């Protein structure tokens, strides 16, 4: 559910290598209301991109927005299953037209009611392209989305674009004050799951009218409200909202301290200046483990690092080549050397924590040099003298492990490699969009919502936006459509699993590993709560009272 924007932020500070993401159950049950209320929780954060729910899609933003806004749906801390929050009910008969009823009595911080209009207003605002809201992307399944996009007049990039055809999504219809309907372009069984994402938060009218101000001083509807306004690069202070009707936050105050460098933040944590860090500097993992013991929280994550295969390049057309390359890599040893063991080797394409994920389904994800050589030979071998070019974006610490990958391929298959790691992220992504990679390329993927479809459709269905490998398989596409149209999640899952089987054989990308969460918290924390989907749930963390 977290965007990958984090990597942009991380890429910017060269010393940081990785931050974390992920979901998972807390080690203590959050339903057990033993935690006491009160106190100030001091939280590590990086500088958020936006505090506007329609725009903030990066980890640091979401971690703040989640405490400021509540959505129609929330996720069970342990199972990750969607539960109604602001929604009274979400119903559909055809998975295409959804009727949503909103609970009454909720208000924004400024007193405006949270009603059907608040949602319609927010979603339209996000989807309308001239507003340039990053989370507009999430509205694309709603009918009429295309009409809110301006069309590129000459098709060659940025020029003054004309006004879009419509200002409002035709798929959103208000029924009464607390009821509205959402019509999708195509049936989608996972829709109720998706709308727990903060991008689907309601927005007050005052907020939409002056979104810039609302970004600095959010008008939320959640457990906490902002104190003062956003102090850029310094901090964000939240206090418990006394008007919130739902379960109130535990700590009286949430104080986010903003750091540009995770090492600097860790030093502050060590000095007792922070209570929670949702991530650790990779090189300090061992030390933290020995020093903090139980207070180091670990959990398998759902953020995938993969090495994409440029299928559009002749050298990678044969699946045996791709299989051979995958077999040459010892994922665990790289994880141990470069990441201090803070990753979990991938054995499939769906995050293990997700409903519908299966273990050890990837037969090509274990090192097997003999088999790799055989497959390579079967595919006609690697062109003599040609170097394998491994791509990654610059400055984000990817070159280390990529180099290790290259070393292992070279050792196993005798293919010499070179690294192409000098492109900044923007240029790297444009290269990806333009399908100009000349060799395996590093990319990552985090789920958009806790539904296994998010690991399949956007990445591998024919012509999908993020299908950087240009994988095209009609059978795969049709299995996804069937899954989307199934009547329930349980009915949908087998279709998706069959689709996964196809790519496990074809390997349009080589899955590398899932990031492991590692958070530390201080002795002040009484009960640490980690939501399986929405990560560190600061509002539910209680502090020791004395």
């Amino acid at each position: 559910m977290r965007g990958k924007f984090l990597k942009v932020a991380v890429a910017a500070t060269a010393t940081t290598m990785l931050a974390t993401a992920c979901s998972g159950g807390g080690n203590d049950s959050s339903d057990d209301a033993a935690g006491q209320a009160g106190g100030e929780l001091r939280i590590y954060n990086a500088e958020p991109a936006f505090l506007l729910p329609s725009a903030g899609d990066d980890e640091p933003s979401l971690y703040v927005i989640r405490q400021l806004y509540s959505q129609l749906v929330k996720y069970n801390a342990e199972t990750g299953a969607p539960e109604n929050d602001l929604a009274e009910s979400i119903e559909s008969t055809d998975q295409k037209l959804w009727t949503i009823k909103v609970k009454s009595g909720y208000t924004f911080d400024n007193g405006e009611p949270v009603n059907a209009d608040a949602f319609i207003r927010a979603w339209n605002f996000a989807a309308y392209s001239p507003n340039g809201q990053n989370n507009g992307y999430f509205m694309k399944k709603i009918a009429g989305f295309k009409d809110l996009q301006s069309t590129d007049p000459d098709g060659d990039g940025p020029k003054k674009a004309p006004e879009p055809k419509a200002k409002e999504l035709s798929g959103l219809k208000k029924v009464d004050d607390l009821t509205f309907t959402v019509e999708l372009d195509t049936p989608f069984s996972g829709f109720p799951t998706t709308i727990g994402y903060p991008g689907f938060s309601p927005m007050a009218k005052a907020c939409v009218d002056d979104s810039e101000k609302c970004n600095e001083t959010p008008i939320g509807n959640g457990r906490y409200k902002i104190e003062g306004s956003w102090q850029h690069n310094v901090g964000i202070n939240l206090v418990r909202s006394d008007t919130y009707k739902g379960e109130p936050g535990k700590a009286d105050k949430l104080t986010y301290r903003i750091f540009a460098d995770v090492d600097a933040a860790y030093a502050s944590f060590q000095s007792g200046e922070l209570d929670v860090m949702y991530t650790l500097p990779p090189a300090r993992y061992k030390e933290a483990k020995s020093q903090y013991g139980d207070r180091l929280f670990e959990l398998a994550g759902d953020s995938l690092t993969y090495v994409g295969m440029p299928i559009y390049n002749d050298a990678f057309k044969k699946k045996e080549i791709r299989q051979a390359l995958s077999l040459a890599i010892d994922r665990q040893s790289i994880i141990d050397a470069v990441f201090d063991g803070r990753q979990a080797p991938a054995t499939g394409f769906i995050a293990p924590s997700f409903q519908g994920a299966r273990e050890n389904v990837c037969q090509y994800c274990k090192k097997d040099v003999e088999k790799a050589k055989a497959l390579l030979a079967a595919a006609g071998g690697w062109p003599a003298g040609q170097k394998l070019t491994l791509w990654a974006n610059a400055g984000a610490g990817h070159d280390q492990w990529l180099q290790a990958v290259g070393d292992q391929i070279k050792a196993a298959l005798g293919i010499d490699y070179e690294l192409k790691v000098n492109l900044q992220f923007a240029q790297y992504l444009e290269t990806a969009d333009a399908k100009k990679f000349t060799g395996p390329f590093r990319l990552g993927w985090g789920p958009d919502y806790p539904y296994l479809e998010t690991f399949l459709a956007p990445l591998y269905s024919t012509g999908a936006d993020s299908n950087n490998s240009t994988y095209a398989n009609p059978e795969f596409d049709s299995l996804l459509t069937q899954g989307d149209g199934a009547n329930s999640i349980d009915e949908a899952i087998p279709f998706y699993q069959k689709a996964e089987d196809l790519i496990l054989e074809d390997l349009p990308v080589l899955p590398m590993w899932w990031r492991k969460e590692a958070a530390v918290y201080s002795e002040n924390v009484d009960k640490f709560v980690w939501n399986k989907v929405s990560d560190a749930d600061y509002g539910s963390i209680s502090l020791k009272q004395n």
Partner: protein
Amino acid sequence: MGRYVIRRLLQFIPTVLGTMFLLHYITSLAIQFSGNPVRAIFGDRTPPPALLAAVTERLGYGDPCLDQKGNPCFGLFLDRMQKIFSLNPDFGVNLRLRPVTELVSDALPYTLKLLVIAILFQSIVGIAAGVWAGLRSGSFADNLVKISTVFLISVPIFVLGLVVREFVGVKFGNVLRGQEWIPEVISRGVFSPGFKPDYPLASLIIPGMVLGAVSLATTARLTRTSIMENLRADYVRTARAKGLANKRVIGVHTLRNSLIPVITFIGVDIGSSMAGAVVTETIFNVPGIGRLVTLAARTGESSVVIGVVTMLVLVVLIANLLVDILYAVLDPRIRYE
């Protein structure tokens, strides 16, 4: 004097415009050769082209000249200059739509505080060490200062910063924090591993000292040389012949003359210190200018780079001007030219 200041201020104009154009040109080249920086906002998810176009347009990267490799984009430059030199100076916005002027006004105070601490530290300690060594040339003190300054100069500032953060800020700080009798402003403020909003000044002291450390070495070396040269000056001999106490001969007659080159150095050094803040601010998490520019350069936010660096250049130039004025105050021979 007034004429001199005005003339110097007028001389700034071509320098500042030249610098702005240089920055404008290289950032334009960056976009022309390595693509639209807006794309990076969306990360792995490929955005709908319409959304990308809309955001691009909104952020001011829509000028067609940015599609032609090597085009110096004079039109865009003039546009920018018009916006900047209007009544409401508009330096544009960053990728997150925050106005550059706001970014700078947020960040600049931290960097300036850091700089002031660094300069105070380097001047006070550097000059004291230099005087001490200069007065006792060849002695143990002299050699101590000589060796420690050369060593200080040779260690890269980021290594120094990291070591100080871990050992002084965290380790030693934790010891202090264990002691009840130490005031919190010391144990939690001064000896913190980085900038803390609770102690906005105290927590900048150590970062400032790290920033000033390298220049401190140079200041000390320069002072030492200068003191030694001036001790031999005829007018110092005159001061002795006047029967003045040694303290006065050195404190009044030698020091003021010796400080002239030192002050010049410190002034010129402000620019480099400003740049050195890039490293220090990263290590000690100071939300200052250096960090801002580094991030902006990395993400290709040309408006930020141009805006911030231009303002920095102005700060540097004005600092140099102030030093020149101070120089004239200290050395009347310049004043009356």
